[in-house]
Structures are given as structure tokens and as C-alpha cells.
């Protein structure tokens, strides 16, 4: 899943700590705790996971530190859910529509651009809809991705109603026999209720025109974001029923551990991971690989 060419000095801290030690003791748990906290896991999730681990060490008579580490990785992987959850839904009646939402600057537009690129390569007919009519040059940015990927493109004038863009995009999609409509939206903080209302309207129009809910409502999260991601997820779930997370900027040194808490508390699975700014820098989410990276540290 991951391409980490940019990394230097990446060594498996937890692994190292594991091989350098024989006994299972409290300091081992302290080290695990640090590793998890450093990965932006929520404190409560961390506490619970480690509490469970202590129980498992006892109940399963885990023989050595190596086994404990493996058991931790397993629990975390389970927490992230079934790998099947990471599949993006397709509608039997085209066009399939994905709506991308999220706070400012997290990677919505870029992720859609990459998705368009990949889907086109797989021979599908894709349409990018510039539902961000607010930010300076947002539509131009998406337009360049449409050019890059060879996707159809629908945009309106800056400042116009984004819901109307969605309407037009679906009309165009039907007229041009498009398989997949990808709708970009403006970044908005989840605390701005008026902007969340605007998003609800976009969602409603999409649902009305499709005759069903959007096939995916994807919440873009920045992997460097800490605890605030939980609040973001909660508000966007409440507003538009998020079905999956697109975790962008996972090529940095941040671990994105907060998605564990989000899955745990809200049941929203990660579906995709962004690992760069180039068209091909996107992967399907793989829980086990994610966990291995999470436990590897600087």
C-alpha cells in the first residue's frame, strides 16, 4: 500500500524495542503507550487497547515480547474493520456518484483528481464536478486534474450555487453516458453550521437527482490532523452521512492514528490513502499495513 521513498532513518522502533528486550513488564506497556500516542491515537482508545492487551497477555499466555507486539498489531487491525469495508461502492444503475467533503486544505480536490486518473486508466468514463465555487481558483485546480486524467468536467462561475453544479453534472453525466461522477466541494470547518447546511443541500440535490443517496460520501482527512479529526468526522457524519474516509498526506511522518478512534466510535472505515501529489499516488486502504506503519516509528 505504501510508497515511502521519502523516508530516511525509518526504523522499527517498536520492533527494535521488542528485539532488544526479553521481559514483558510495565515499561513495555509504557513504550507501547508512547508509540500509540505519538501516532495520534486518542488517549482513551490507547488506554483501552492496552488494557485489553494486558488481559490477552494473561489469558493467552503470550510467551514473549514478540508475541505481545504481534497481538497488539492484531487487535489494532481488527479495530480497523474488515478489509471488505474498504471497497468503494458502485451503483448498478450508472452513473455512480461520490461526494467528497472535509475541512479546508485536507486534500479533497487532489484525491478526486487522482481517483479520476485511476478510474480513467481502468477504462471508465469519469466526470469531475467543481462543487467548490468559493475558494480562489478551486475550479481551475480541479479543471487541470480533469485535463490530466481525461475526465469530463463541469464547472460554474465562482460564487454560484454548488448544488446547481451537482444538478448540471448529473444531467451531463446522463447525456454523455458517464460511469462515475466525482463531486468536489469547498473546504468548510465542521463548526460552521451555515456551511454545513449548504453541504446538506448539495447532498439532497444529489440524492434527488440520483433517486438514491450518493454511492459514497467520502470525508477527506489530513493524516497530520490530531484529535480534532474526531469532531470533524462526527459533524460530517451527522450532516451528510459519511460512508468512508479518504486519508490524505499519508506520505509524511504523521501516522494518522486518529482513524482508529473514528472507526471505533463512529464505525466509519478508511477507504483510500493518499501518498503524494502525483496522479498515481493513491492506494486502497489496507488495515494491516496501516497498523505496521503505525507501530513503526522515527
Amino acid at each position: 500500500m505504501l510508497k515511502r521513498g521519502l523516508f530516511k532513518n525509518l526504523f522499527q522502533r517498536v520492533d527494535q524495542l521488542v528485539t532488544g528486550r526479553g521481559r514483558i513488564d510495565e515499561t513495555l506497556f509504557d513504550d507501547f503507550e508512547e508509540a500509540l500516542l505519538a501516532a495520534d491515537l486518542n488517549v482513551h482508545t490507547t488506554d483501552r487497547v492496552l488494557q485489553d492487551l494486558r488481559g490477552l497477555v494473561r489469558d493467552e499466555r503470550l510467551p514473549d515480547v514478540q508475541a505481545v507486539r504481534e497481538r497488539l498489531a492484531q487487535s489494532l487491525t481488527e479495530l480497523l474493520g474488515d478489509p471488505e469495508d474498504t471497497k468503494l461502492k458502485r451503483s448498478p444503475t450508472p452513473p455512480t456518484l461520490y461526494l467528497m467533503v472535509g475541512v479546508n486544505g485536507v486534500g479533497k480536490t487532489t484525491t478526486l483528481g487522482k481517483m479520476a486518473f485511476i478510474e480513467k486508466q481502468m477504462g471508465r468514463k469519469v466526470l469531475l464536478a467543481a462543487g467548490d465555487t468559493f475558494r480562489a481558483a478551486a475550479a481551475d485546480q480541479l479543471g487541470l486534474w480533469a485535463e490530466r486524467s481525461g475526465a469530463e468536467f463541469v464547472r460554474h462561475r465562482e460564487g454560484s450555487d454548488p448544488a446547481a453544479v451537482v444538478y448540471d453534472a448529473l444531467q451531463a453525466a446522463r447525456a454523455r453516458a458517464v460511469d462515475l461522477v466525482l463531486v468536489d466541494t469547498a473546504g468548510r470547518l465542521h463548526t460552521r453550521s451555515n456551511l454545513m447546511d449548504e453541504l446538506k443541500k448539495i447532498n439532497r440535490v444529489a440524492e434527488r437527482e440520483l433517486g438514491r443517496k450518493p454511492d459514497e460520501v467520502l470525508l477527506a482527512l489530513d493524516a497530520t490532523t490530531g484529535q480534532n479529526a474526531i469532531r470533524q468526522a462526527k459533524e460530517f457524519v451527522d450532516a451528510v452521512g459519511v460512508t468512508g474516509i479518504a486519508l490524505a498526506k499519508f506520505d509524511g511522518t504523521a501516522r494518522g492514528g486518529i482513524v482508529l478512534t473514528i472507526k471505533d466510535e463512529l464505525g466509519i472505515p478508511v477507504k483510500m490513502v493518499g501518498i503524494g501529489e502525483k496522479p498515481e499516488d493513491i492506494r486502497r486502504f489496507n488495515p494491516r499495513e496501516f497498523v505496521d506503519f503505525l507501530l513503526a516509528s522515527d
Partner: protein
Amino acid sequence: MFESLSDKLQGVFKRLRGKGTLSADDVDVALREVRLALLEADVNFKVVKDFVARVKERAVGEHILEGLNPAQQVVKVVHEEMIRLLGGEEAQAARLQMAPRPPTVLMLCGLQGAGKTTLAGKLAVHLRKQGRNPLLAACDVQRPAAIKQLQVVGEQVQTPVFTIPNADPVRIAREAVAWAQANGGDVVILDTAGRLHVDDALMRELKQVKEATQPSDILLVLDAMTGQDAVNVARDFDEAVGVGGFVLTKIDGDARGGAAISIRSVVGKPIKFLGVGEKMDALELFHPDRMAGRILGMGDVLSLIEKAESALDEKSALEMEKKLRAGKFDFEDYLEQIQQMRRLGPLDQILKMLPGFAGNKALADLQIDDRIISQREAIIRSMTKKERRDPTLLNGSRRKRIATGSGTTVQEVNRLLTEYDQMRGMMRKMMAGDMPAMGPMAGAGRGAAAKSKKNKKGKGGGGGGGGRFRLPFGR
């Protein structure tokens, strides 16, 4: 989802309060909650460790000697230590470093999507207000439509944007400086591409831009929502180019902003500005005390009372009352009210500090916009003293002049005047006893300075206060 941290802390401190003496154990109990609060606020876990240890050292001992309420002392120590870490009590905001001889070069850098391009526009506004003549240089040749974005921003803030098609960032930066020199520009703001701190090639490029243009200030732009990794980002950027200060963006959300503590502890450079919105005027100076309160997220009743007492001193309040009774409340008085309120910190934070308000759901939904208050202040400051004393002088041409002077529009000036009239009418009624007197907080959340959640879309639109005016802190 979580029990409110401030409630939790208050619970703990209440327990402590009951005991009367402060043992090491008591401090430990309190600090366990503080540790949780800090981790929830995204302060780096190592930084938290050090911080808690330091507070413990101070809290045990010193405060038993004072013989004061132990719970209050722990709160105070935590708060003070945090303010110190964030740059000290002095709210004298760290300034931009300007070159002794123009043009000054300011370089913006940071991770992808942090808010550099937006900040470039905001800084242009900020500098123009100070009478400078900035130039924006589009050095992001990486991101699709990045240059176009800066050009649109430049248009919004009426500032020229320099770029060279198909050139590399170093050349664009260098020639931008030369262009500014030749055309009377005195500050060049370099908008650079977002980059990962571990991307060697791009970090090298950043160094080259620095060497070619010798910026007098280099601002690292950091998203306030950043988690544990903030320390690595800050350290690596600082090591590569020598950061002069930080800007925390997107602070208008509900992120606690613990990254502020993290970066301050790892790189001892000041936080110079806060980005508080997407619009070009959404830039504020950094105040360590406010930030400390936000990160702790704790109902620090004590400090509220302290601040409130010093700010609203009895005498001026009495004078104000006399004026109100005489119906002589003019814009000079209005300005004074705004300044008093300023001393207390951001309104919504203050409200949240009050007991009983901490977990208030309605309050969490409320957005109180400091910028509207700032705008009002700017408008009043652009009036002459005579006009402030006698608002009837304000005819059309004067209003136009005031709008220009304050960087607002005539509509906004008109709105303030209408509200002023309404307010006076209301006061007269109040003084005549037609209305129940307002408590100190009455309307503070709903008046001119507040936007209720249900207000119409504010994005793009003028963000006007709307609604009835209430004295921000009537007596």
C-alpha cells in the same frame, strides 16, 4: 463524545478544594487530568511529560506555604506555566521582522494545505493597512492552479502578483524582489509550494529561495489542527531554513491548538499570527494568555474574575452609568466599551470560562466573531473626535471617508450607525424602566458581536453583525 475536559477538571479541582491542604498525591490527581487535557489538545506527548513534571515541581511546596485554596493554586500554576511557554504574559505580539532598507522579503513555508497562499493575501492586507506597498510573488510551480489562486487572491486584496511562466521558484523569487525594487514595492511576500519536511529535494529548493532573496522573516505556516507530528515539522523546517516565527491557521474551528505548545517547546520562536477564517481580513495577533485558556479548555473561573476585575474597574463603570442615564452615550464611550471588552479576551472563550457555561451545548454552537468587533473599532477610529462626540455630523461624504479609512464599506458604516441609534433608543427605555435591566452577560452572545448558528450563509457575504445591538458588557 468525551466528557467535557473542563467539567472533568473542575470536578477534580472541586475534590481538591474540599481537602484544604495540597499533598503531592493531590497534585498528582489533578495533573493526571491536566495530562489528559493536554493530550486531547494535541500537545506532543513528550512535551506533556516535561510540562507536567515542571508544574508538579512548582505546585508542591510553594503553594502550601502560601496557605491559599490549593485547587486554585494548581489551576494558576498550570495556566501560568502554559502562558510562559507560549511566550509570556506580555501580549505585545511578536512583530514581523522588517529589513532596515526596503524591500523587505517575507518567505512563507509549510506543509501542503496549511494556508500559505491565503496567508499571503492576509499579510498583504495587514501591510497595506500599515501604509506599505506589498508585492505577492507566486513561487509555487507545483500545485495545479496555485499561481492562479494567488492571482485571484491578489485581485481580492488589490495587490500586484509577480510570476514568470515556466520559471523555477528561485528565479521567480529573485526577480520578484528586483521588480519590487524597481517599482516602489517595499515588501515582497513569497508564497511557496507546500512541501513535506522530509522531502529533501523540495527542502533544498526552499533553502535556495532563501539564499537568493535573504528574507528578513520566514514564517512557518501550521494548521492548528495538527497533531503529534507538529514537533517534527517545526524542527525540520527550522533546521533547514531558520524559521523566524509561526502562524497558526484555521484557529476559527474548534481544534484546541495544542500544537502551539509543541512547536514553542521544540523551536523557541514566537507565534506571530493566527489565521481565523478564509477571508482576507481573518488575521489576528497571537495572545499567549488566550491560547493557554483555549488549549486547557478549562473553566478557569479564577483568571476570569481577575481579568474581569482589572478590566472593568468600578470608576469607569460608574461614569458610564451616569452617561447612560443622561442619554449621552456617544462613540467615544462606545470605543471605550470595546477596549474594555478586548482586555478580557475573545468573547466566546470568556463565556465558556464561566461556571455552568462550560458544557453548555447552545454555547458551543454559538459563534462570536471577534472580527466584527474589530471592524467596528476600525470604523469608529476612522471618525474624527468631533464626529464621535456628535454622530449627527455623519453625512454621506463623511461616511464614505470613514469607510475608506477603515477598509470597510459605506453599508457597514451605515449598519453601525443604525445599531447605534437602536441602542440609544433601547437605553432610554431601559433607563426609563420600560425594560428589565440586563445582567452583565445579557445579550453578549446574541448581539452585534455574535452570529447565531442559524444566520444565513456568511461565507463570501460581508459577515455583518445583524440583529439588535446590545451593550457588549453592560453593567
